[in-house]
């Protein structure tokens, strides 16, 4: 009986660890997204205060290519929207996984208590 419980405990602990490492990866990704968001916001602000006559270049490989200011501005805004969507998706996933992690911790705790109870009896 206690061997089964031990196996269940091990399985749950491994599951918990994998959830935890997934959360850590997601949090790291989210931070990267956050810094990308800030960078793009700076560029967006910069474009907004530019004259229409100012020349905007985009770096494609080693080449600076002249772009239309309007096009570049629109590009950056689209990117911003995309990043914001990604961030909210990542947040949702992180929330989901955190709840999952808590559930698993509680189950592990219960199993541990049961195991100790069986050993005492």
């Amino acid at each position, binding site marked *: 009986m206690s061997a089964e419980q031990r196996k269940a405990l091990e399985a749950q602990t491994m599951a918990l660890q994998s959830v935890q490492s997934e959360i850590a990866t997601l949090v790291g990704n989210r931070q990267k997204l956050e810094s990308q968001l800030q960078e793009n916001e700076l560029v967006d602000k910069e474009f907004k205060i530019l004259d229409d006559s100012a020349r905007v270049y*985009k770096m494609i490989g080693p080449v600076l290519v002249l772009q239309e200011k309007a096009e570049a501005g629109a590009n*950056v805004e689209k990117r911003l929207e995309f990043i914001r969507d990604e961030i909210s998706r990542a947040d949702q996933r992180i929330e989901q996984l955190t709840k999952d992690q808590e559930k698993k911790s509680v189950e592990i705790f219960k199993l541990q208590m049961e195991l100790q109870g069986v050993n005492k009896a």
Partner: protein
Amino acid sequence: MSSASTTAANANNGKTQTINLEDLPLAQLQKIKAQLEEELNGLTGAFSQMKQAQAAFRECKGCIDALTPESLDKTIMIPLTNSLYVPGKLSNIENVVVDVGTGYYVEKSKDDAISYYDAKIEYVQNNAKTIQDTVEQKQASYRGLLEIMQYKLTQQQQQQKQQQGAGKQAATDSRA
């Protein structure tokens, strides 16, 4: 038991909870100490990055200032690769192309570029100040934590001595 509840507590890292440090056992305090140390390291790293960024922007400003009317038509070396340069002539001393981020570059007049860099330097300075304030706060918490841990440690040691003393007392009593 403590492992399960600590894992749950770590998952709540994003939410701020006011916990009375004095109520926590030594093991918990050690975990918090390790966490604070990690945070402090991260923050000091970010702070030095800010300082480096500031220095880079100042250097950019210095380069722009070097574009004087006298430098028009002066020979300059243009890098084609890391180790290959070609000589060229400085033809435009009015405009510069500034990296604004995410692969975009904007042509600006010298004055606009200088004000751009000034704004960047101020922005980075503000961020650095915020980081510094946070670092000071965390260092204060860290010092407080260390004091509480020291207090608990001495308490623990005293308790152990008392138990040992009581054990000896019981032994001598049973012999007598």
